[in-house]
């Protein structure tokens, strides 16, 4: 169960907005987290409390393939991103590194900055405690759920490579 305060952003938040280019050579999530959203809101990283939730509009994470974008969100202490929709590469990156990303247009639109949210990822349920509303997330396709269950792509591939390296049974 995830619980935290909502930080609200608009439509088409791009990866240059999420992590500025001068920070993209960093590789540690905590370091990257200090620059999260720096181009759009320099105070953001300082305001986030661990577990807080990022809520955005359409096409969140459009632009570059830089995986440091979801890493920086994770590193800043954000536990989950809810959006009306996600850009394709960002969505893959987030799933791959086990940053929970939830597609839920109604929750994304109705949530106000500072609302207290509680999220049950396994049931795909978003509870807005401030407004007393409950929202259902768009469910993941089966394959994506399996990736998430494996703990992300690194673990998924690690298990596959191990299987493939085992000698064939007689």
């Amino acid at each position: 169960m995830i619980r935290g305060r909502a930080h609200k952003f608009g439509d088409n938040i791009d990866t240059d907005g999420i992590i500025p280019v001068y920070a993209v050579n960093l590789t540690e999530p905590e370091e990257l987290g200090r620059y999260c959203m720096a181009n759009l809101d320099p105070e953001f990283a300082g305001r986030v409390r661990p577990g807080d939730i990022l809520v955005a509009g359409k096409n969140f994470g459009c632009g570059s393939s830089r995986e440091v974008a979801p890493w920086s969100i994770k590193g800043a202490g954000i536990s989950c991103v809810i959006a009306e929709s996600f850009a394709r590469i960002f969505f893959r990156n987030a799933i791959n590194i086990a940053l929970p990303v939830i597609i839920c247009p109604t929750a994304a639109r109705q949530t106000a900055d500072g609302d207290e949210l509680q999220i049950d990822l396994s049931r795909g349920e978003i509870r807005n405690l401030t407004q007393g509303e409950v929202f259902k997330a768009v469910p993941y396709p089966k394959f994506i759920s399996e990736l998430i269950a494996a703990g992300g792509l690194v673990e998924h591939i690690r298990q596959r490579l191990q299987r493939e390296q085992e000698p064939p049974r007689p």
Partner: protein
Amino acid sequence: MTLAEKILAAHAGCDSVEPGQFLRVKVDLVMTTDATGLISVHQFEKMGAQRVFDPQKVVFVMDHFTPCRNIESAEVVKKLREFARQQGLRWYDVGQAGICHVLLPEKGLVLPGEVVVGGDSHTCTYGALGAFATGMGSTDIAAAMATGDVWMQVPISLRFNYHGRLQPWVTGKDLILYTIGRIGVDGATYAAMEFGGEAIAELGMDDRFSMANMAIEAGGKAGLFEVDQKTLAYVKARARRTFSVFEPDPEANYAKVHEFEVSNLEPQVSLPHSPANAVDVSQVGTVEIDQAVIGSCTNGRLDDLRLAARVLKGRKVHSRVRCIVVPGSQEVYLQAVREGLVEDFIQAGAVVTPPTCGPCPGGHLGVIGEGERCVSSTNRNFIGRMGSPGAEIYLANPAVAAASAVSGVICHPQEVAKA
């Protein structure tokens, strides 16, 4: 099936595929750069992988921040160099490298009908060759390096037909800016964009690369062109292995077909801060600029430099403007020297940099400051993209960028040069 569906089916061992289907797709090439490659190497190691699936099919191109801009980028390139040496994979560094998306087609490393994944969002550029190419993040690229395949969901396909004959100074860049302006920055999200029509048949390869390159700016997963005689002439001079040509079926299923009449289209300018803010250059108004950039994976090829030189030759860059020309590769640079283009640029008062992504992602060699305005033949005008979040970026074709450098305000090339 559409072009994208045919290529994916062939690489997944299926007779046919449908949008939404999940596939394990074999890749013909995996590419990454100094911008995102180091995380891929770390993830590759965490996956317990020992060797890349095929060293000849893994390419590292040092292009974003090279020649290295600072100590951090030097350390990144050092580590990538070491990994490339251990694995024996294809390695392009300063002196051989160019911008990855200019370099790979030039070297014949991407051919029609292939599937390519790259750790850079503009990997979709190779769709100009009739390949299915898409950008991915570092962890996906690590998985592809380890296994030689990727998971993919078959995208819906959108067809874009362009009709008519383009006016002088109107390029592939203008067609794609116009298209993004019409459908929006999420107008093709998760989709394969397929470009066609008689106006496309007239375009040279460099213009097609510019268009496929910016499919991602509409959210596209890929941007593809059918192979024609121009494509074959381009690849046959470079290919060192066989390839397959796929064609979309006449009854292929497109989620939407867009028909654009472009005979009267003007050069386009995308106003800050979105590529979708495309307007006719005559509608921009008086915008004084501080910098003009001609280059990038969108417009750093030979035809782009020739177009810019037609404007700049015999003229002078405005005293208030810095004009920066970035050839996309060593081959482009050398040919630009041979044709006298570099001399034209220098005589005009422009500076010519080594091949690099450089100013486009705000890396180096032309970062812009608070309150500055840049007209740029690049692909993104997001807040903070080329430097200060307080700067403004106007996207345009290389001729508009060059003409604006001369006049000091954003203008139609015909205002300073003859077509």
